C-alpha cells in the first residue's frame, strides 16, 4: 500500500534555495551525524532517494539534559504525527525547533530507533551483529566528547516514517509515504545540538529494504 499524502494543509514548501545554504552534507545510509544549529537558523533534511527513515534527536546546546521529548511534543499539539507547525518540545517544556515546511506530510515519533538488542527481540537472536541506529547514536555522542552517553539517547523522531496507531490501540508500520526529494524543514528556536542516525535497518520496510543517503542543509538566521 502506498499512502503518499498528495494534498492538505500540512504540505508546505520552503522558499529557501539550496544554493544559499551555509552548510550542506550528504549522510550516507548507516552513518551518524552530529552538529550544532544556532537559534534562528533553518535546518532541512532531504530524503534524496525516498522511503528513508532519518532517526533524529535534539538537545538544548547549552544543557544536554534538556532534550527533545516525544511525549511532550505530541501532548503539546494533541496529535501523534509531526508535520508543518509542530513545535518540537524539550523535556523541560521549551520549544527547541518548529517545523516550518514539509513536503512529506507526516513523520513518526513513537516508533523509536532500532538497536542490536531490539532487533534480537523483534526479528531473531542472531540479528545482534546487524548495524543499528542506537549504535550510530552512541558512536556520534562518544566522538562528540562532551560527556554524553546512553543516558542521553531517548525517544527520537523518525522523519519520513509512517507509524499509525489504530482505534484498537495497535501500533502499525505502514509503507513509507515519502518519495525522492521530499523534505522537512525546521527553524531552531534556541541553540540546539542535532543528532542523526541515517537508519541502516534491513529487517523491515522502514527504508524499503534499501537504506539510502539523505542530505542536511542549514541556512543562516534571517537578518
Amino acid at each position, binding site marked *: 500500500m502506498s499512502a503518499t499524502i498528495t494534498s492538505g494543509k500540512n504540505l508546505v514548501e520552503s522558499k529557501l534555495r539550496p544554493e544559499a545554504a551555509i552548510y550542506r552534507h550528504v549522510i550516507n545510509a548507516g552513518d551518524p551525524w552530529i552538529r550544532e544549529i544556532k537559534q534562528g537558523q533553518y535546518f532541512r533534511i532531504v530524503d534524496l532517494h525516498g522511503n528513508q527513515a532519518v532517526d533524529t534527536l535534539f538537545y538544548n546546546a547549552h544543557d544536554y539534559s534538556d532534550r527533545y521529548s516525544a511525549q511532550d511534543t505530541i501532548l503539546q499539539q494533541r496529535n*501523534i504525527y509531526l508535520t508543518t507547525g509542530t513545535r518540537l518540545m524539550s523535556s*523541560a517544556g521549551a520549544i527547541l525547533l518548529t517545523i516550518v515546511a514539509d513536503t512529506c506530510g507526516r513523520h513518526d515519533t513513537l516508533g523509536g530507533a532500532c538497536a542490536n538488542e*531490539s532487533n534480537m527481540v523483534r526479528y531473531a537472536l542472531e540479528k545482534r551483529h546487524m548495524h543499528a541506529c542506537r549504535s550510530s547514536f552512541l558512536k556520534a555522542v562518544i566522538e562528540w566528547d562532551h560527556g554524553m552517553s546512553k543516558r542521553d539517547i531517548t*525517544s527520537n523522531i523518525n522523519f519520513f516514517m509512517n507509524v499509525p496507531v489504530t482505534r484498537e490501540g495497535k501500533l502499525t508500520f505502514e509503507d513509507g509515504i515519502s518519495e525522492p526529494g521530499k523534505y522537512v524543514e525546521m527553524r531552531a528556536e534556541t541553540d540546539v545540538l542535532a543528532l542523526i542516525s541515517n537508519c541502516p535497518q534491513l529487517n523491515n520496510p522502514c527504508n524499503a529494504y534499501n537504506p539510502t543517503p539523505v542530505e542536511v542543509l542549514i541556512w543562516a538566521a534571517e537578518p
Partner: protein
Amino acid sequence: MNETVLWEETIQPGASWSHVLKRGTALRVTDLEGGANVGGIFFNFECPTERYNMPDTLKAQHVARLTTGFVVYSDMGRILLSVTADTVGWHDPIGGTSNRKLVEAKYGPSSYQKDRNDYHKDGRDSFLVELGKWGLGRRDLVANVNLFSRVDVSDDGTMSFAQGHSKAGDSIDLRAEMNVLVILNTCQHPLDTNPKYQPKPVRVLIRQVAAPTIEDPCRVSRPENGRGFTLTERYFM
C-alpha cells in the same frame, strides 16, 4: 509456591512513590475510587542506564496500550515487567506527564504555604524528586506510562483522553522479571478533561509470585516476547 503478601500501603492523591521490585515479586496497583492515574518509569536497579523504553515496548508488540499478556521492555531487549492480570483493559503508554506550567494553567495557582499538603503537584517535578532520591535526574526522565488511563488516537492522529475509564476496584498486576526500580506518582493525566485538581489515591500490594513457566501467557503471547524472556533469563545466568 504460596503467593505470600509481603506488604501493602496507599499512595495518596498527587503523591510519589518508589520501590525496588525484586525479581520473583509482583506489584498490584488498585484504583480505590475510580478515575485514578499512575505515572510510572522503570529502571534496571543494578544498572539504571538500562530503563523503560516506550518505543521498544510498543513496536515489539505492535501496541499503543498495555494490558494482560503484554510486557514492559527495557532499551536492552530485556523485560522489566509483565502484565499478568488487568481488569481495566487499556493503560496508556504514549500520553506523557504533566509539568508545573500545565498544572498551573489548568488548575490555577497553588503553594504549600497556602494549601499545605494539598498543594498542586505535577508529574514532571514528582518524577524528578523521586528519581533524585536514587541518584538519578533529568537525563533519566524518559517517556513514562500512565496506568489506569486511556488515550485514543483517531485516523488523523488526534489524541483524546477517555474520561472515567478506570472504575473503583480496578487493578493491574505487574510481575518483576528483573530487579526493577519502580518510580510512580498519582498526579492527574496531562490530558485529563476534569477541570478540577482531583488526583486519586491507589493501593499498592507487593507479594511473592512464582517464576514464569515455559507456558506463561506473557511469554507465549507472541514470538518477540519469547525472545525477550530468553534474553532476560540469560542476564541472570
